[in-house]
């Protein structure tokens, strides 16, 4: 959508189209399962029977090119941080990142003495939603996803936004 983005003046047709695109994107956010450590187990639990992520329209994809949301679940080490950045760049626009758990948010329990731990994944990729917890319960992850859906719904990609 490169040519069409941020281009049209705000009128009723563009507003309706924006709403349609926002609805489509927020109703089917396909997630790139990026489970690194213990939070991955909670992400799997959130996708399993009792709390079902597919109710909200999310489908797990394992290739970054086909995913919209990258859920960084777990501790990010320096060695892995380079790969996280590479995979983020391989995702197709529009893309979003959820930092799940305290390790991805700010380094977690390793904030003080971890010499090889990245203190928060937002040092290498731009994060949209932070989900705190160690690990966050599946309900907490679902709340984070709902907040992300709200954010995508109101994005209005087509209207030209005033600087």
């Amino acid at each position: 959508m490169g040519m069409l983005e941020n281009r049209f003046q705000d009128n009723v047709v563009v507003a309706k189209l924006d709403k349609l695109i926002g609805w489509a994107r927020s109703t089917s956010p396909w997630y790139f399962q990026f489970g690194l450590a213990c939070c991955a187990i909670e992400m799997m639990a959130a996708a399993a029977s009792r709390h079902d992520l597919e109710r909200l329209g999310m489908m797990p994809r394992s290739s970054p090119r086909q995913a919209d949301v990258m859920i960084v679940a777990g501790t990010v080490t320096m060695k892995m941080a380079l790969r996280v950045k590479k995979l983020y760049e391989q995702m197709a626009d529009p893309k979003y990142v959820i930092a799940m758990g305290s390790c991805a948010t700010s380094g977690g329990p390793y904030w003080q003495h971890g010499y090889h731990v990245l203190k928060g994944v937002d040092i290498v990729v731009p994060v949209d939603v932070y989900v705190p917890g160690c690990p966050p319960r599946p309900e907490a992850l679902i709340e984070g996803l709902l907040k992300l859906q709200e954010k995508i719904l109101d994005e209005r990609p087509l209207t030209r936004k005033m600087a």
Partner: protein
Amino acid sequence: MSADQEKLIAELVEKGLAGDMDEINAIEDRVLRGKVKSALAKAKRAAKTTTTAAPAEEKRVAETIADTPPSDNPNQKFGQIIEDTFQGSLDAELNDTHIQLKPDNWFEIAKWLKSEPSLHFDSLQCHTGMDMGENMLEARYNLHSMTHDHKIEIRIAVSREKANIPSIEQIWRIGDWFERETYDMFGIFFDGHRDHRRMLLPEDWEGYPLRKDYEVQETYHGIAIPKVKEGWE
């Protein structure tokens, strides 16, 4: 028992150990004969447990530890055997917790420890490093034998400047990853290791983290590494 009787029993026991049973069987007093025979059996048992190595070792063992009886502690026992087979390899006194070796002919010792049938240490259970301070780095090996069920611990100390130990990864294949991890964390170089690279940290990391004098680097590929924070900020 009187002193004469003890002396007589000791004489007869010596004769019995040498193989001469006629005089013992000729004793008419049943009590005395019983005492001599039980003392002989005890002496034979003691002689058997002293040496589990080849019988040739037995004489050397009896010579070197003249007055103290051989201990049952495996570290002492095998340390003594190692010292007997490879002279000059012990780096410190024998004690109950570990065997301290020099790094020089560690590869031959290790190969002998695994291949010798009565020892047969076929499992390297654990391998780690230690920074003992005062310019001493140690590598510690925990060996276990699955056939005989005995275990020992071997420690090899090296200095920080020349931290080289022969690699035993061709003897116990698990040593491959163990030694890579010790190299990664302590900087001990294992000569002869076929795949000598870092295990956990990335290849271009500087420094060996578990040393006591480690300072974490400032940046890694442009990512700044903050130093230790005191309390909440």
